[in-house]
């Protein structure tokens, strides 16, 4: 079950985590975010879910808007957002490490 961190981020493939991960490589507007997330995570986020997550992230101060370019407003990750993402990534890495260490002997036995 996905746990919720104080920043509202979960350890699963939730849109907020995916958006912060995408913005970690630089500011992007909505369409660029959706394309990038689809490319690196294989997850297609609909416009409704994407902007719902953007709204929550902005409210929590984890991302901030930049000046709009022809109605397309880019967002960038804030220091608080980077810190929240680091915590989420650390959680995910810990689980991945445990999974890998427990899977090793199992795969060895099968092989």
């Amino acid at each position, binding site marked *: 079950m996905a746990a919720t961190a104080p920043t509202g981020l979960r350890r699963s493939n939730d849109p907020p985590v995916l958006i912060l991960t995408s913005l970690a490589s630089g500011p992007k507007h909505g369409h660029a975010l959706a394309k990038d997330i689809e490319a690196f995570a294989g997850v297609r986020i609909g*416009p*409704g*879910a994407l902007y719902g997550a953007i709204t929550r992230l902005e409210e929590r101060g984890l991302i901030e808007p930049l000046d709009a370019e022809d*109605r397309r407003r880019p967002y960038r990750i804030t220091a608080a957002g980077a810190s929240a993402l680091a915590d989420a990534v650390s959680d995910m890495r810990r689980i991945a490490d445990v999974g890998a260490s427990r899977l090793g002997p199992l795969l060895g036995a099968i092989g």
Partner: protein
Amino acid sequence: MSRPGDADRLLRWYPAPWRARYGDELAALVEDELAGGRPGLRLRLSLAHGGLLERARGAAVVGDSRPADERVRAGALLVLVAWAAADLAGGAFAKTSEHFGASGTSAALGPARTAHAVVVACGIAGGLVLLTGALVALGAVPGFTRVGGWRAVRGPLVRAAVMTALTAGAVVPLSVWAHHLGVAQRNGADLAYGLAFLAWAAMVAATVGLWAAAVVSVARRLELGPRALAVEAVLALVGAAALAVLTAAVGTWWVAMASAAPWYLGAGRPGTHPAPVSPQLVAIVVVLVVATVTAAFGASRIIRSRGALLAA
């Protein structure tokens, strides 16, 4: 090909304040996604879901972005809306269970009589809770009208009043018509009368719905003090509990009648055993279950938010 304004039309699901902040950029995203094509079902559903969620968040029904007092008030209003729906189901239940006491012996109908008494008691308790809640909120009404609140709620109140007048007016010709019909004709044998009665029942449902919307519209704008809000919260919790008991009692009555006098439920003759199911009873129970779930959600929101309210 997408038509100009397609994206803007799709954004109507979102509340106006949200559209003022994010509407342009979301419309640009939708246009980029469409790339000149027509909006598909998946895109429409995504925007409808997102828009309704933002409306629910704006009304403090979901999420934790609104202050705790607004979340408590939203929870109480959910219980109020649930009771509005339960009132309709209760009216239909009163009609469905009419004269059930004459359908069998006192001993056989004992459990059904007890369940029916519980339904009536819960209905009265719910009415008293709503009345007390209205009296508590009444103190904030003068302040509300002084600051021009009437203008904001005039539309919903006028719509509810007009619908009430139409529904009341329709009673007269319907009663005259019914007066010239026999019992069998009034109970389904006369198709035209049956349709007219259904139309009137729909008008009653619309009247209750419009009044619920009007009351919610007013209640959301009232300046309630902490003490009044706490009383409303407790009343809502009592109301939610009463609704849950009422729903359980209706279910119990159904089971008891199915066991003691199934012919009564299946519209058969005494001594026969038709399936103890009627469309009215199914509809009543479905509405009551949905209302109970809604009230339970409102109650849980009050309980979770009251902690934050007290901490603040």
